[in-house]
């Protein structure tokens, strides 16, 4: 006997200037599945976003790529429906389903019409909870994944990325590619995929955001029907891994007129109290599009690249601060030199008041622009839960940005930035650059 349809435990009304009203309700389904909901009745569509923590990091070394392949196969048949049956049914309902795996998560999404939402969600639920893993589909999708891996063998960014992650996080799932290797993919069996399915889609790791023309009372039973048959508890997650690369340069010879460089140094945890200070700092240093120091020095003043940027990669099982630049073989050494200098300069001198103000007004002003569609907002809601940000985060996030002072930036650059610890991986035929230890 169901005593309640859905339990609405929290309702929070966000009223930040510049925002549409974002009223998040925390919904708990009759079976205990939690989700955050924004009721948006003005358009007759519903958007669901599901994040299952773990992702490709759950694969063993021998079975790497299993989670990625499994996720790709969720749309390739369920029950007695084969891939074409499933696809035809999706087309008939004009539903839009997304299936993706990253190193940290499996991400599923559904956009459906209000008019046929029950049928569309029933179909999506079957795909998620009862994938068929038909051998014929498995073989076909395996070949597609292998084709992509082969192409990566000569792709400069893919080559650089592989070399860098192996240096950053050796002997850890983060050293591997999400898609696995040609050898491991080839060897995966249907049993492996079933095991990966049970491991990767566990309800204790699920974070759910829903936006659309649906009430909390309606949502609870929907979630139970969708996900109720999934395992309740997932296997152990990998341990966090410390950043292990040392400062220096790795050159990988590749026949190309241009060199692609990626770089990294040790990172900062997402829940570190200094995270926002670093986030604002990086806006000035390298994340700032056309207004960052790296873009100004490497692109605008000297025309050495089409794009240069840095970013904070603060992830589930390990962190780093990274960046990317591509420049002609003759000029890549100069570009790297400039990046190293800018890394040092912001440590030595911090940022100016004008830079800090510009960074803050940009970051606070740009935040509401992310809320530009039901599925985008659903993704924000699931992401907030994953990162344990609290249901009032949308209202407080800009305050945290605005609270960062010049002194904070000066302190955190010295604490976290490590100009001598930057490892560059350069793929191309760079002139005047040699590998160091």
């Amino acid at each position, binding site marked *: 006997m169901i005593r309640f349809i859905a339990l609405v435990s929290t309702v929070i009304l966000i009223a930040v200037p510049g925002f549409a009203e974002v009223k998040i309700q925390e919904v708990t389904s009759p079976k205990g599945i939690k989700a955050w909901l924004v009721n948006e009745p003005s358009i007759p569509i519903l958007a669901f976003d599901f994040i299952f923590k773990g992702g490709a990091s759950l694969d063993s070394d021998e079975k790497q790529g299993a989670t990625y392949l499994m996720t790709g196969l969720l749309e390739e048949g369920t029950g007695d429906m084969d891939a074409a049956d499933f696809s*035809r049914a999706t087309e008939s309902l004009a539903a839009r389903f997304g299936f993706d795996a990253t190193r940290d998560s499996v991400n599923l999404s559904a956009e459906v019409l209000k008019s046929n939402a029950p049928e569309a969600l029933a179909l999506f639920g079957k795909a998620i909870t009862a994938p068929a893993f038909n051998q014929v589909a498995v073989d076909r999708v395996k*070949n597609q994944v292998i084709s992509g891996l082969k192409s990566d063998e000569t792709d400069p960014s893919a080559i650089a990325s592989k070399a860098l992650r192996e240096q950053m996080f050796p002997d850890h799932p983060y050293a591997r590619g999400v898609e696995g290797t040609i050898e491991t993919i080839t060897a995966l069996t249907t049993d492996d995929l079933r095991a990966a399915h049970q491991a990767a889609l566990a309800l204790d790791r699920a974070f759910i955001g829903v936006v659309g023309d649906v009430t909390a009372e309606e949502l609870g039973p929907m979630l139970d029907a969708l996900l109720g048959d999934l395992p309740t508890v997932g296997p152990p997650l990998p341990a966090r891994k410390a950043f292990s690369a040392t400062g220096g340069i790795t050159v990988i010879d590749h026949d190309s007129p241009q060199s692609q460089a990626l770089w990294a140094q040790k990172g900062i945890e997402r829940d570190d109290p200094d995270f926002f200070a670093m986030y604002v700092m990086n806006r000035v240093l390298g994340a*700032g599009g056309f207004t960052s120091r790296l873009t100004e020095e490497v692109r605008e003043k000297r*025309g050495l690249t089409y794009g240069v940027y840095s970013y904070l990669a603060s992830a589930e099982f390990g962190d780093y601060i990274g960046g990317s630049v591509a420049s*002609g073989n003759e000029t890549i050494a100069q570009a790297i030199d400039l990046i190293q200098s800018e890394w040092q300069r912001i440590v030595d001198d911090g940022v100016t008041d004008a830079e800090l103000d510009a960074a803050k007004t940009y970051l606070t002003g740009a935040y509401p*622009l992310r809320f530009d569609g039901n599925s985008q907002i659903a993704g924000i809601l699931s992401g907030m839960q994953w990162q344990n940000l609290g249901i009032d985060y949308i209202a407080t996030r800009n305050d945290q940005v605005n609270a960062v002072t010049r002194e904070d930036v000066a302190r955190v650059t010295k604490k976290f930035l490590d100009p001598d610890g930057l490892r560059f991986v350069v793929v191309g035929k760079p002139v005047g650059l040699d590998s160091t230890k």
Partner: protein
Amino acid sequence: MRALLKPLLTICLFAPFAAYAKTGDVTTFTLNNGLEAVVIEDHRAPVVTHMVWYRVGAADEKLGKSGIAHFLEHLLFKGTDKMEAGEFSQIIAANGGSENAFTSRDYTGYYQRIAADRLPLMMQLEADRMQGLKLTEEEVLPERDVVIEERNSRTESNPGALFSEHRNALMYDNHPYGIPIIGWMHEIKNLSREDALEFYKTYYAPNNAILVVAGDVDPEQVKSLAQTHYGSLIPSDTIPERVRPSDPPNRAAVHTVFEDPRVRQPYVIRTYAAPQRKAGDQKQAAALVLFAELLGGSGVTSFMGQRMQLEQKISLNQAAFYDGVSLDPTSFGIYAVPAPGVGLTKLEAEMDATLAAFLETGVDADHLARLKTQVSASEIYALDDQSGTARRYGEALTSGLTIKDVQDWPSILQSVTAEDIMAAANAVFDIKSSVTGWLVSDKESAK
């Protein structure tokens, strides 16, 4: 980043059908100086998308000056009489806005997404750079190096992109669509400040521009703001008519093999000459859109997918593609990626057999019905995609279509019959109008 080129090979299931806000939410006006404007209301969030589109693209360049439209687009972020170089982007960023620009064969566009109350500022800045651009050699030369690096990143480092350029050059014998949007490297290297300014003065004027504003705005207010900021710009009476050299009759099928040692996954691709969406005459293009979906839309439910990938297991991936938004006649394409162990000779033969089989079998009525369901749904989904809707209006209005054409498009798609589709299919599959290409690491091993 600045200067996103439109991919030459666009395959997107939903794009052909999408999308427009319901007619009631779209209003239009034209200023006395000829600036046309489209306003799309969406009051769900206090955000606005502000776009200015120019009716000029890479296909309007002078011979020998390939890449100038795109290079100029980069240079529009330099200074004006009133602004220092780079100040434009700084002001947008300081107001929390995102911005970018893009160049295609038929248009060049600039946009910002920002809090709705900053719309007047966006108009002020965009109007300023419509006619007030100021360029120095010190700014132009490094930016040309940026474009060279952009070409290195996008094209030279990517055999698939080089192959696409090569096929395109073969596809258009005389029409400038055969010239890459970013420009040939040897011509980019010679583009000058004077080239950029001449192109700018020729084409950047209010009567060659379309303003698209989408978001939390009131159309009357937009009109009055547009009058304030854009109204005093001076129209040009020397904008060239957009008549490009056209192609001679196609007399022989072209077949080409592109070898690059970096290729790890060979494939075969073919394009056929095809008509575009024309103002007041979109039926044939609508039939081709649906035909592309039936033939090679979904990997597993389309005719090619069913036969080549699922039944014969000779392709890993295959598709048909067609985008009818184009000022001049365009192309309809198909491609197939071989399954392991399958040579391109066999794959191409089977691709031909598949096309013949489609023409023999005809339209699957159930499949067509499903596609029309998706067309209807795309009208609802489009309500949740403000900037996508804005983009579609800008793209259409700079490619020879009218607002009415955009708004009529869904009903034209709905009205297409199986007979229309077969007629369009039979007309487009003229092998003499086609270019077939193989992308391989070396010719022998790929056969």
